[in-house]
């Protein structure tokens, strides 16, 4: 294993455990013979990696300007109402984590969001509620 595998290794840990725990970071540091701070530094640099437990599904609503112009803020508000959580929080049943994110490159179908790896565009509050139903 070489240093350039680090990001992939961290991602694997996140996929396995739902987040990157301190233990996981220590394990990677040992395998690659790196200071643990270095692994922590890389993990916390990237917004898709998390050192805190995430829900089974992560909702990322785009807050960048093109989505904002198409009422992206209302979509975020609709999620807060539907799930009862604010950005950065996870539902008590561990089903969803809700985050606001920067441009996801779906500006032609704004407002848009990602749920895990799927992109959904031309959102309305009603449409979003329907989409969320398909995630258990």
């Amino acid at each position: 294993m070489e240093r350039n595998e680090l990001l992939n290794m961290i991602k694997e840990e996140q996929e396995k455990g739902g987040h990157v725990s301190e233990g996981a970071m220590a394990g990677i540091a040992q395998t690659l013979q790196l200071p643990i701070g270095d692994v922590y530094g890389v993990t916390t640099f990237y917004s898709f990696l998390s050192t805190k437990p995430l829900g089974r599904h992560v909702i990322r609503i785009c807050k960048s300007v093109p989505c904002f112009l198409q009422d992206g803020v209302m979509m975020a508000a609709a999620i807060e109402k539907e799930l009862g959580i604010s950005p950065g929080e996870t539902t008590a049943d561990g089903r969803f984590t809700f985050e606001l994110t920067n441009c996801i490159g779906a500006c032609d179908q704004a407002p848009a969001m990602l749920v895990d790896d799927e992109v959904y565009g031309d959102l309305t509050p009603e449409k979003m509620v329907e989409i969320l139903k398909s995630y258990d």
Partner: protein
Amino acid sequence: MPEKRILLKNCGKIDPGDIQSYEGQGGFKALEKTLGMSPDAVIAEVKASGLRGRGGAGFPCGAKWELARKSPGDEKYLICNADEGEVGTFKDRYILQHDPFSLLEGMAISAYAIGAKKAYIYLRAEYRYLLEGLLKAVSQAKEREYLKDLEIEIREGAGAYICGEESALMNSIEGKRGESRFRPPFPPESGLFEKPTIINNVETLVNIAHIILKGGTGYAALGTEQSKGTKLFCVSGDVERPGVYEMELGCDLRELVVDLAGAEDVGWVQVGGSTGAIIPGEMLQTPLSYETVLGSGAVMVFNESRDVVDFVYRTMEFLNEESCGKCTPCREGTEVMVEILGRLNRGEGVEEDIPVLEELSRTMMLSSLCGLGQTAPVPVLDSLKYFKKDYENRISQSVFLRSLKTVNG
């Protein structure tokens, strides 16, 4: 001027999951021609074409390739930058979705020209839904023996705007924080793993096959003096028909946003992404080219009802969040700008805010490490140039609001 579909000619026509449908449209003919040429001859054609980088910085592509080719050493890398994080940009996504093979053909030609045996495609995490299609395209191209001397590895990002910046991208592939590097050395001399490296944007690479088939001078027949060929524009915001449009370089903004995308009552347009120039509604005749405004090709349209100070504040919040934090002018400069613009936005501005924004802008542009900090002040300065009245109104409202507080004790 209508659309000119050259780069997008296959989009919607071919099955992106089937390499034979790409071959049916003349796909890989340019690669075949390339393999009968010397690498230097390929580079000469790209130089003659006048092609410049389509990711935003606009560096001449052929000159860059020549530097990498001439750099000593057998181990060289090609990187395709598919970390399309610039706000309002989605053209590379469109290509990857509809015509991934044209990218692979461009990469095979580029790798041959510079002498790279290994190439990476750095795909942003937000585009993970494109990964499967891309992997499939690579494996089909391998099966058909178009990638005999080239190994293509797809590396995924993990959510960081700055990784679209070439030196930060290389750090990310190396397993480090995606922080920008000091330059020189420049990547064609010492880039990924300190080896000569070429980093090209998806759209840049898609141009290559057309240059080879038409010849550099044939390609250069389109465009302006310093901006050759066509460009993909991503129109979003207050328009009837948002989407990707391919236009000859030098076309004017009005044709794109009004005639094609159906914008009305345009207040201003930001061209090139979050750090792009602001063009007020009265100046829609501005041509789109490297000589004037271009950037990544993002074209965000704002109608007259929008608030320019609020927009600049939101943009600065984004840049502050995405600053990698390595250099002080960008890390602290964007922070201070968010604070000042936020105050102006909330009606707590003071007279000194405008000169402070201007002075800080100069400092950041001169002393930041990479393009993010160097160009972050552009929307601030442009909005101050064209919409100073809006800032001044905010300040006088602020003064009025404060006077009320004093009166009411």
